[in-house]
Each structure stands twice: as C-alpha cells, then as structure tokens.
C-alpha cells in the first residue's frame, strides 16, 4: 500500500501510545468538560449540531438525487428529482464495465487487507514476544518509515515492479503488503504487549514451539486488532486512486478498479471529449463505490474510531 493514502501515514513515530481503550475513558465520564446548562445554550448547541449534520449529509443526499435524474437535470440541484429515472441503475451496467471494476476492487482489497493483516501480525509478534539484539533499533526504523512521504518511494517502486515483470498485473497494488506495514505492525504490537506473558510460558512448558505460540495463542486473542487492520487496509485499498492510476491506467478498461473507472467515466462522458454529459451514470457509480464503505463503517464503526483515536493517543 502507498503511504500517501493509508492511515499508516497518519501515525506518528513516537513512543508508546496506549492500548485501544476509548470505551473506558468514555464511560467514566471524564471529558464532558462543559455542558450548557441554560435553555438557550442547549438550543444553540442543537442548532449547531443539526447545521453540521446537514452540511455533512447534503452531498450524500444530493448524490442520491442526482443518480436518479435524467441526463439534463443532473445539475439542477433539487434534492427531489423532477423526473425520476431509476433506470439509471439498470443502464449503468451497460454504460460502464462496473461489474468488472467492482470485482477487481474487491479481489485487490481483500488480498491487500488479508496479506497485510497477517504479515503485520507475524512481524509484530516478533517484535513483542522475542528478545534479540537490535530489536529496539529495528523497531525504531519501523516507526521512522511511517514518516516517509509516499512520493519519495513512488518512482523507484514502480521501477522495481517493472524489473519483476509484474507491471500490468494487480501485483503492485497488494504485493508490498506481504511484508507488513509500519502502522499496522505498531498497532498489533501494542495489542500483543498487552497479553500476559504467563499464557505463552505455560504453552512453552507444554512443548509448544514458537510458531504454535503465535498461531494458537497470539492470533486467536488478537482478533480485535486484526479486524482493525483488515478494515483499515480494505478501505485504503478500496479508495486507492493514485496506485491504480500508476499501475493500471494503460491497461484494458476491464482491468480497472472502481476509483480509476469512475475517473475514466468522468472524463469520457464529458462533452468536450465527445461524450453526451451522461453524468447521472457517474453519480450512480459514485454512489455504488461509496456504499460498501458506508456499510463497512456501519458494522465496523467502533474499530474505525478506535483505530483512528489510537493514532493520536499521546501523539
């Protein structure tokens, strides 16, 4: 994954950030630092809250409305289409190879997320359970790589993939995830450090080898942090536009991911490029690419918020 788009980039190379414990601090009531007591204060508070709700939701409602409008009305800004054209949702599949794009995006995102969650977990276990010379230094380097701007490695990584002969395949979009990723290693390590060491020592006495300690004890217990890593990377991969632009843009339309495909459609449908201005299909596609993320968030909300909050803890 590229550092530019992933949450990994947003984590700081500093010392220990606490574990994933936002729930606890929420429960003990600290932090409701000031509550308006007067009625006027309450009213103002709710007006502010609802105004921002409108601001954040408006583009979604607008998108939904636009996706149901016929060609000429996409820009009319009414949140209730004058003419309903739900056929857009049927026609879009003929207009664009959207099914291919969705399939490609899912495969790449699952591979990217699965690989990075497993590899980061393995590496994190190495950094948390074992003592070996240079451990501190090496982990310092792991943290330092989080600060490396993605732009610096973008060109050489492309050339490295060129050398391997894998350009034009999907490999560059998930291949680097085989080797773990700094922020996720950090996150998983935090989790492993919280596991009581006696658990492992007992298994050692029973004759379990190190690999078994990892697969039979560490992995099953670390499912929560595994899920955080998986959904973070799934989102990063699903949204990855720049990577697709670099590695897939020259290829056949059917090999695009959804973000690259939509970007293509935005250009192709533009009247200046001989299109008919069929932006309603772009809107349908934009809605379809967003929907899985909203569903993912609905189910994994706690993980997202905790994961993001962890980045800033004691930053």
């Amino acid at each position, binding site marked *: 994954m590229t550092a530019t788009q992933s949450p990994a*980039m947003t984590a700081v190379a500093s010392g220990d950030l606490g574990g994933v414990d*936002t729930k606890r*601090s929420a429960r003990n009531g*600290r*932090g*409701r*630092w000031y*509550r308006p007591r007067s009625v006027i204060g309450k009213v103002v508070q709710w007006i502010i*809250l609802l105004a*921002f709700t409108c601001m*954040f*939701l*408006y*583009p*979604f409602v*607008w998108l939904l409305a636009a996706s149901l409008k016929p060609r000429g009305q996409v*820009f009319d*800004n009414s949140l209730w289409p004058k003419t309903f054209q739900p056929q857009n949702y049927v026609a879009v599949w003929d207009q664009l190879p959207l099914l291919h794009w969705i399939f490609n995006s899912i495969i790449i995102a699952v591979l990217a997320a699965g690989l990075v969650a497993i590899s980061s977990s*393995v*590496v994190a276990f*190495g950094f948390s359970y*074992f003592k070996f*010379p240079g451990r501190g230094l*090496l982990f310092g380097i*792991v943290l330092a790589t989080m600060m490396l701007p993605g*732009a*610096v*490695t*973008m*060109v*050489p*990584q492309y*050339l490295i993939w060129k*050398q391997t002969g894998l350009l034009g395949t999907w490999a560059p979009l998930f291949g680097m995830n085989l*080797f*773990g990723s700094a922020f996720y*290693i950090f996150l998983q390590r935090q989790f492993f450090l919280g596991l009581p060491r006696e658990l492992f020592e007992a298994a050692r006495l029973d004759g379990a080898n*190190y690999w078994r300690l990892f697969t039979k004890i560490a992995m099953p217990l670390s499912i929560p942090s595994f899920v955080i890593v998986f959904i973070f990377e799934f*989102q990063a991969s699903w*949204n990855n*536009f720049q990577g697709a*632009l*670099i590695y897939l843009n020259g290829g056949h339309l059917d090999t695009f991911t959804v*973000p690259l495909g*939509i*970007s293509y459609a*935005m250009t192709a449908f533009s009247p200046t490029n001989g299109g008919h201005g069929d932006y309603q299909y772009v*809107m349908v596609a*934009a*809605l379809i*690419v*967003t929907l899985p993320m*909203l569903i993912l*968030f609905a189910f994994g*909300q706690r993980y997202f*918020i905790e994961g*993001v*909050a962890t980045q*800033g803890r004691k*930053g």
Partner: protein
Amino acid sequence: MSVATGAPPATGAADGGERKIRKAKKYNRREAIAGYLFISPWILGFLIFTAGAMIYSLVISFSYYNLATNSAVPAGMDNYQRLFSDPKVAMSLGNTLFYAVLAVPLEIIFALFLAMVLSKLGRGAGIFRTIYYLPKMTPSVATASIFLLLLNGNTGAINAFLKLFGIEGPQWLVDPNWVKPSIVLMTLWGVSGTMVIFLAALKNVPRDLYEVSSIDGAGPIRQFFKITVPMISGAIFFNVIVLTIAALQVFDQAYLLFWRDQTNASPDSSLFYGVYLFQQAFRQFDFGFAAAMAWLLFVIILIITMIQVKFSNRFVYYEGDN
C-alpha cells in the same frame, strides 16, 4: 542449529569472554533466531521497497533514465539544476505551500470546534459522530465527482446556496484565485479523522480542572485557552504534523478536479507539487527528474517537520511531564 534453551551459545569462546557471556545471558540464542525469523518479512520488505527504493531513487535522480531500454545514463547534477531552472517546480511548490498554509489551520480549527461541540453532548454524541465521520469513508473519486458538480460556478449547489444570501459565488474551479479554496472545502468536508483524534484527547482532560477553574471565576474562553488547549496540545501537535505532511503531498483531489482530463487546460494555480511530480514520472516518463523532485519534497517535509517538532517542545504538554 542451536543448543538447549537458556544455555549460552557455544560460540562464546575464550577471548573477549566476559562481555560475550553477559550478552549470551541477555539473549537466548534460539529465541533471538526465532525473533529474527518472525520479523524477516518486514526486514525483506524494508530492504527492497524502502531502503532499496530510496537508494535506487537517489541513483536515478543523478541519471537520465530511459524507460524503453531500462537503462540509466549518468546525468550529474542536471536533474537537480532543473529543479531551479524549471519555473513549474517553483510554481507548483508555491501552490502547494500556499494550500498547506490555508488548509492546515482551517482543518485544525474546524475539527477542534466539531470535537468540542460533540464532547459537550454526552449521550447523543454517538449518532452525530457517525454522521460526521461518513465523509471520511467516501472514496476520493466519489468526493471529487460530487464536488466537481457542487462547485460548478454557474450551476453548482454551493453558489446556489450563497445566492440565498445575495452573494454572487465565485467560479470555484475556473478562477485561479478560487482553486485552492475549492480543494480546502473538499478537505474540510472530510475532516472527521482529525476530529476523532481531538475527541479522544478531549475525553482525557480531567473534568475537575474545569470545575476548580470556574470556582476561581474563569469563563469558557479563558478555560479554553488555559486548560483545553494546553491539555490537548499533544493531539494538536500530532494533527498539525500529519495534516501538513498530507497537504504537502496533496494529489487525488487536485488531479481529479483539474488534471484528469488532459484535453482541458487547467489554471496554473491548480498545479500542485504532487501532480507535477506525477506528470513528470508517469506522463513524461522523466524518472530522473521526478526522483529529484521527490527528494526535494522529502527534504522540505523533513525541514518543516523538524521546525514543528522544535517549536512544539515549547508548548506541548505530555502527561508525566512537570
């Protein structure tokens, strides 16, 4: 391969003995080997895709790279000299810095404001937090395709909204002066990641501080500057650094709004450093020059981050410090 657990390694021979024995006691050899094996994927990846890539990038930046033959011809300092002779480098850098100076403070203020509104709410905060977080989940292409139409100077909803107040909205995407505010607007819509970090920080501010200070007669504004800001200074610092690094690399929004369609001419003020770097690498295939540009960006980010770290030492409060 190795002797029984806990035994010192057999290699710790006679001379230089004492230090080696102490080391051997500290590290169990079997365990150390296993540790290295576990972290070996990362070491491999680091050597190839980070360290290797950086060295490779340095080498390319001093060469003319020919994509067809995959060969590099030494170019001396040419690519670095071009950084100064190509006016678009300075221009795109100026655009990017201008954008960062505009975007980062606004993002911080807006995110902090939202976080404070939500943190006052107590029980109902969850649903609002969810709604405010949704833009963050929206892929950048979707955001761009929505805002491309919302920001349209003639037909866009944002100008229609401004008209309600009698304001004639600008040509957001055409007028060179309004290009950066357009992208800032998109960025602000997705500011909720920063908000969540502030929210977590605000939760850890001890409530008694506010109670004690209000007994002493401190008003909300005074409390904000004397308690809230110092207590969450760590989170502010973190967000400033992360947002600055992101702003200096801004690509997706700028590319999707202005440079996606190569048949259209876009205003110079929309050429951001990340976009120009991308164009040089993957449109012109001038990898040597692109690598030199990347190193310049790296140095700039490094310097700015170091200044921020230095500056932060003066005012950032960490728990446990006095």
